[in-house]
């Protein structure tokens, strides 16, 4: 089954590659991303209100640990076979350890279209996974003693748009609950798929503009951008299973692990690790991994999770 939102993404990529005049106004893109972030946050918050919070603490700690560990798995590969300078290796490691909210929105839409249940509080995990990898990346580039940039960068990340809106949405959803949020549904929840389709159209155009720089960096980056998400997704499925998540929940966690940041981390790296080349990390995360996840990755992680859960006898 082809998802319409994926087709919108492909339309954007095609239009971009063909150098079409098509462009979403900046303010429209801003509004779309604000609506999506708030909608995702509030959805998670509503579900959090139903959960005894303390029961989630072990899962939360495990997800934070995942965020710290993932960058270490790719850093040696980028330094060794990738022959990258330390700053670039650290920056790319941070991109891949962190998450992309856009990819999260796509997996949520994917599961909803197939009536597959997942733990609806998982937007919380998006927040938890966003930050640790950035700290690891800065430490990799600068060493632990180099304190310059820590403060600015922590501020940049914690008060960046995505964290503020996701956490804000989570809190609002958590405080007012499902009944209270009802009046907002026509703006935030009913048009979610349509907003996502437009957002992905624009992301397709942006992706197309990064395909050019990919040609310059060659095969290693292409292979890295495809293999890394598959390996990370496998870790995500196993971790999801260990944490007792549902099969759908494991697909979401796998997708989160597989996704690479293209907004929060690049901004933080520009400030804290300026010697890293932003074109390189964006070519990988936006030019390869994002389209891979959206088009092929998510169905693959779904199949992976299904097989694994069947094999282990979990539901």
């Amino acid at each position, binding site marked *: 089954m082809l998802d319409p939102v994926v087709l919108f993404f492909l339309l954007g990529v095609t239009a971009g590659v063909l150098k079409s005049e098509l*462009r*979403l106004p*900046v303010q429209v*893109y*801003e509004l779309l991303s604000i609506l999506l972030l708030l909608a995702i946050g509030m959805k998670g918050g509503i579900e959090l209100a139903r959960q005894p919070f303390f029961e989630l603490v072990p899962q939360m700690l495990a997800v934070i640990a995942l965020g710290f560990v993932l960058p270490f798995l790719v850093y040696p590969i980028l330094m060794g076979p990738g022959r990258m300078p330390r700053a670039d290796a650290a920056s790319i490691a941070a991109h891949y350890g962190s998450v992309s909210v856009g990819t999260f929105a796509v997996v949520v839409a994917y599961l909803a279209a197939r009536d597959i249940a997942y733990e609806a509080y998982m937007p919380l995990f998006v927040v938890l996974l966003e930050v640790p990898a950035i700290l690891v990346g800065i430490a990799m580039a600068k060493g632990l003693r180099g304190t310059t940039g820590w403060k*600015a960068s922590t501020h940049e990340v914690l008060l960046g*748009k995505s964290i503020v809106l996701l956490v804000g949405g989570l809190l609002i959803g958590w405080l007012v609950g499902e009944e209270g949020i009802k009046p907002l549904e026509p703006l935030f929840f009913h048009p979610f798929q349509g907003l996502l389709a437009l957002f992905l159209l*624009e992301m397709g*155009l*942006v992706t197309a*503009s990064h395909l050019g*720089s990919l040609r310059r960096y060659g095969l290693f980056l292409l292979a890295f951008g495809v293999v890394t998400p598959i390996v990370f997704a496998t870790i995500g499925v196993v971790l999801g299973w260990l944490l007792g998540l549902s099969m759908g929940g494991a697909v979401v966690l796998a997708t989160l692990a597989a996704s690479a940041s*293209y*907004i929060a981390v*690049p*901004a933080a790296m*520009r*400030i804290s690790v*300026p*010697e890293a080349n*932003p*074109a390189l990390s*964006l070519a990988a995360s*936006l030019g390869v991994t994002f389209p891979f996840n959206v088009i092929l990755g998510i169905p693959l992680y779904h199949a992976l999770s299904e097989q694994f859960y069947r094999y282990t006898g979990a539901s």
Partner: protein
Amino acid sequence: MHRHRRRLLTIVTESAIESRLTKDLDRWGAHGYTITDARGKGARGIREGNWEGNRNIRIEVVCDEDTARHIADHLREDYYDHYAMILYHSDVEIMRPEKF
């Protein structure tokens, strides 16, 4: 009306460093600045400004000769190596010297 000569510094750079740069400008003695969004092409490729990752800004500072030189020296030292940035100066005339 009497006119006074000042320097106009124009900086075109990445929006990612806006808050850090404006803090530095304050520290280096600028009394104020004007920021606008910018698009264009340079040594680091086309920056279309179509999404948050590749936006550019143009910062204009009007100040006296010494401050202008001070700012330019610092920018060269702290920013030129790693950021997409250009800087140019020009002479301008202003009417209220106490503001600049």
